């Protein structure tokens, strides 16, 4: 980033209007892309910017957004977590099946515990035993899904009397007209941004992801940092699973299937560097939001389903290109 700014310096001296716009896009390529997408859909569909639809989209992305916070930290520290989809299924199934046995609060605590254990297990293998996170979490993706199937015996789990418990409020409720999952996501975004930007741990995350050798020589225990990153990811995925379970008041065995890819796609869209050391939680959320908007917008426009995939792909590639090109300071060539 700094290098890109240095390279752009001579361009800055010729301050024509175009150059100024280019400079703005350089810094905020993603934001520009976001507004282009929003502008396009609000012109194309009258319903798109209605308050109801905006809230709807925000609620739809809140679960992926919650997982994306953890994913951002894991990728920033230089690793991957492919297990989040299966862990969402597992924690949702656990919270739903436990709800009728032990009540809502203990059920949620158990689900969080499951998330923490899964995160700690991956964190130990990757952080302390130095195993490749891509392989380990790919294994967990399959393993956790298998645990779900063994646990439920293939059955749908559901809360027998959904009207007699407050548990559904977490996923379905509103506070001041804002869906509760969105508020939860907002709070988590704030907390983890502060952690990442203002604490020693946060700086160590960037340092371990950006330059592992240097950080090792400066005495940072990268094992602990990597371990913690995966535990955070497990924790947040469990929160997402709980919200999901509460939203549906039931859980299907394959509930979270494919989430890992949607989350990673969104996070990358949000400019988190795949090679580690660079990431911003809010930008990652904007990436997730773009994907959510595309899904919602295409349906509002009545796009044929298969073309939605193609269009989604084109836009993802386009946004990534715009972001990379602006960073290199070469939007205008």
């Amino acid at each position, binding site marked *: 980033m700094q290098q890109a700014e240095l390279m752009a310096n001579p361009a800055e001296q010729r301050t024509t209007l175009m150059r100024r716009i280019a400079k703005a896009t350089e810094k905020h390529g993603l934001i520009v892309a976001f507004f282009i997408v929003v502008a396009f859909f609000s012109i194309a*569909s009258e*319903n798109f910017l*209605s308050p*109801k*639809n905006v809230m*709807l989209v925000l609620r*739809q992305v809140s679960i992926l957004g919650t997982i994306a916070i953890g994913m951002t930290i894991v990728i920033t520290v*230089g*690793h*991957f977590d492919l297990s989040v989809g299966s862990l969402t299924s597992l924690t949702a199934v656990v919270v739903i099946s436990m709800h009728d046995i032990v009540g809502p609060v203990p059920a949620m605590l158990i689900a969080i515990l499951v998330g923490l254990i899964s995160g700690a297990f991956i964190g130990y293998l990757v952080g302390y*035993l*130095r*195993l*490749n*996170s*891509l392989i380990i979490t790919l294994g967990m993706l399959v393993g956790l899904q298998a645990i779900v*199937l063994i646990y439920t*015996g*293939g*059955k*749908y789990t*559901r809360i027998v009397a959904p009207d007699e418990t407050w548990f559904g409020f977490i996923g*379905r409720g509103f506070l001041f007209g804002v869906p509760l999952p969105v508020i939860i996501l907002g709070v988590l975004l704030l907390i983890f941004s502060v952690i990442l930007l203002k604490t020693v741990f946060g700086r160590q995350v960037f340092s371990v992801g950006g330059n*592992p*050798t240097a950080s*090792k020589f400066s005495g940072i225990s*990268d094992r602990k940092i990597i371990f913690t990153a995966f535990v955070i990811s497990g924790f947040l995925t469990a929160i997402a699973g709980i919200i*999901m379970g509460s*939203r*549906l008041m*039931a859980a*299907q*065995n*394959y*509930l979270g*299937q494919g989430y890992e890819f949607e989350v990673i796609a969104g996070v990358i869209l949000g400019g988190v560097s*795949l*090679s*580690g050391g660079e990431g911003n939680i809010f930008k990652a959320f904007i990436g997730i939001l773009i994907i959510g908007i595309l*899904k*919602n917008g295409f*349906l*509002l426009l*009545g796009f044929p*389903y*298969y073309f939605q995939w193609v269009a989604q792909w084109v836009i993802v590639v386009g946004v990534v290109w715009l972001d990379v090109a602006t960073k290199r300071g070469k939007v205008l060539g």
Partner: protein
Amino acid sequence: MQTDIVDIYEKAAVQMHPQKKEWLMKKTVNVLLVLVMVLCVGSVAFANGQQEADVDDGTILIGHTANNTGIDSYQTTHDKVYRDTIANTEGVEAIILDAKGDVAKQISQIETLIQKGVDAMTVWPVNGKAVVPAVKKAFDAGIPVIIVNSLIDESGYEYAVGFAGPNTYTEGENAAKGMIKALDGKGDVVELMGLPGYVTAINRSEGFQDYIKANAPGITILATEPTDWNRAKATQVMENLIVKYGDQIDGVYVADDNVGIGGLNALKEAGMAGDVVMTSACMFGEGYDAMEEGYIMGSVYQSPAEDARKAVETAIKAAKGEEVPFWNYFETPVVTPDNMKDFERPNF
């Protein structure tokens, strides 16, 4: 992407002493080898356990390779009833295998069953195209094959004696009948379909659409959106459809009740549930409850028990050398709030 993966790998490697790295790799390889061995031994032991059924020469021996038992309650019940039916039928034994959703495994299981010399076999195909050569092998060996529950590719029809299962196209038609009746032949409908490319999803969609087009000119299908059989996705798609069409929606057709409950979540939140007519192509336990509560007006009863019984019944006929029709559908009756008391609540 690839370079990034290499980067990460190298990053991890940088911090490791070369000897330690080598040790770690050896260790990993060792662990993997042990795992593979354990799995092999385990599967052999498991297969042996199942072979015990294969003894007598006077009895009829039927082979079965299931799609993926345990993945959902439908397949779990199907497996249980299949076993019970065999156990309760005098003079019939079975070798029951499970492909666990892996088509390569299913192909080798069909070959195993050929070697065992079964008198007939039932195959619940994991993949309609990929199993065709294996089915042909059984055909060449003179073993009648019954395809169960889901169809194989048309190129394989000539090698199979018949198909035993539900008529998913009729299920779609039956759901259309329910919709036409509930809407009195007039209104705008949206459709939540299953997973695109999957035969059941396509048939249920086409059966519904064809019947509506031919019999109810007053009904318009506004949109057909896939849900991938995923409840969470069904809720989102329905939410988006409500934003787009709002009160214009008079009816919702869903590919099964799991999708239906997902759609219902969205309708309830929009305060539209109950006013909007919902019909489903396959009834589950929760859909049964929703019908009791007045949210689903028409559904289709597909019983995994009937499905399994039909499979065994057809296989026994074929094993005895009796003439078997190609299409052996079991009944999938229409369920409405009026007649639902005649049906047991599905346990899936």
